[in-house]
């Protein structure tokens, strides 16, 4: 038992990862508010209104947003495809949505400033023609 605890301590001290013994480096950085930046997904509905994407597992939004921090070519399409897949999983379909908007949020002069980085139209579901 003490051996297991010793392993736990050593991994903690040397910041090693050996699941399920892991380090806890979250929130250890020091990013000033003016450098804070997040990338979120906004869903545009057919009536023109929009809302933030809030999947049932909210960490999906964080994880995909984090991958979009450096918007490399192809990432927007990858993100849109994954978001549509997860919406279909949560809601049973994507027909309510017209577009997926990738929005960068920055903190400027004490308030949030939003800027759209990319907008990807949601493909309409194809209905098979009757023969």
């Amino acid at each position, binding site marked *: *038992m*003490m051996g*297991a*605890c010793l392993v*736990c*301590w050593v*991994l*903690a*001290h040397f*910041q*090693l*990862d*050996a*699941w*399920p*013994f*892991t*380090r*806890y*480096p*979250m*929130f*250890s*950085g*020091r*990013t*000033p*508010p003016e*450098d*804070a930046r*997040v990338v*979120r997904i906004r869903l545009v509905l057919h009536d023109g209104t929009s809302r933030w994407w809030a999947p*049932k*597992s*909210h*960490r*999906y*939004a*964080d*994880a*995909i*947003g984090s*991958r979009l921090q450096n918007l490399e070519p192809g990432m927007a399409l990858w993100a849109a495809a*994954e978001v549509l*897949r*997860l919406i279909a*999983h*949560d809601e049973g379909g994507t027909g309510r949505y017209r577009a997926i908007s990738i929005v960068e*949020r920055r*903190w400027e002069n*004490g308030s*949030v400033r939003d800027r759209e980085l990319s907008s990807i139209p949601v493909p309409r579901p194809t209905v098979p023609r009757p023969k």
Partner: protein
Amino acid sequence: MMASGAVEVFRTLYCGTLATQVAFRFQAQSAFFRSEPSRIYGGMPKLLGLARLQRPGYTQFQLAGVAFALGLAAAALGIAPKVGLGVALLAFFIYFPPILGLGSVMRKANLVPLVLGILLLAPSNQLLGVQIAVAAVYFSAGIAKLQVSGWRWMDGVALQGYFVTAYMWHERPLALWLSRSRSLCALLSTVVLIWELTFPVAIFFPSMVWVWVVVGVGFHLATSLLMRIHYWVYFGPVYFVFVAPWVAQCVA
């Protein structure tokens, strides 16, 4: 079934709470499994950093979840507790790895196998072992802050940044309000870092441990409200280790 010693009290409270959590969240966790989280979070983890675990099929995953909950329930009720703990420990390594991306699981469930292992295998001093494991988590978090940012982490800027980021993610007005006060953020971050680094001290002063426990509960309440980081589900029950001796005394 009356739990007599502090270890039995802890086992009952810890295993009973975990079993209940899994039972209540079983459907949501199964839905998460079906959403193919590996496409976003990557593959299965390597056990002890050595061998990559195999992703179970859906039926295996569900059976492991049932076995985990039933094993814990048996341990909590004192029905063949060693067998129950062993079953739960094995089932953990099938049930949890595929859903590590879930907000309530992530690193928050990492202590579960260690605690179950201590309860199952340690010949004595089980509660001390669990307390050391808890202290190691907080100590690790404190060390990481010092390694990455140094003592400047306490000057309030880091916490202001995290509160602003949390606001931009989750629109929590309280996070925004707190971010506007550098001095309040400095005070809070000083308390957090000192609390994390000194948590091992609490083990040596059992009569003072309530100070660290109260700060800990406040800390997790704050991260839950402000940042949607919920440690209650799979990490929170380990706090019973600090109240189990007191409960055992009351029961006796």
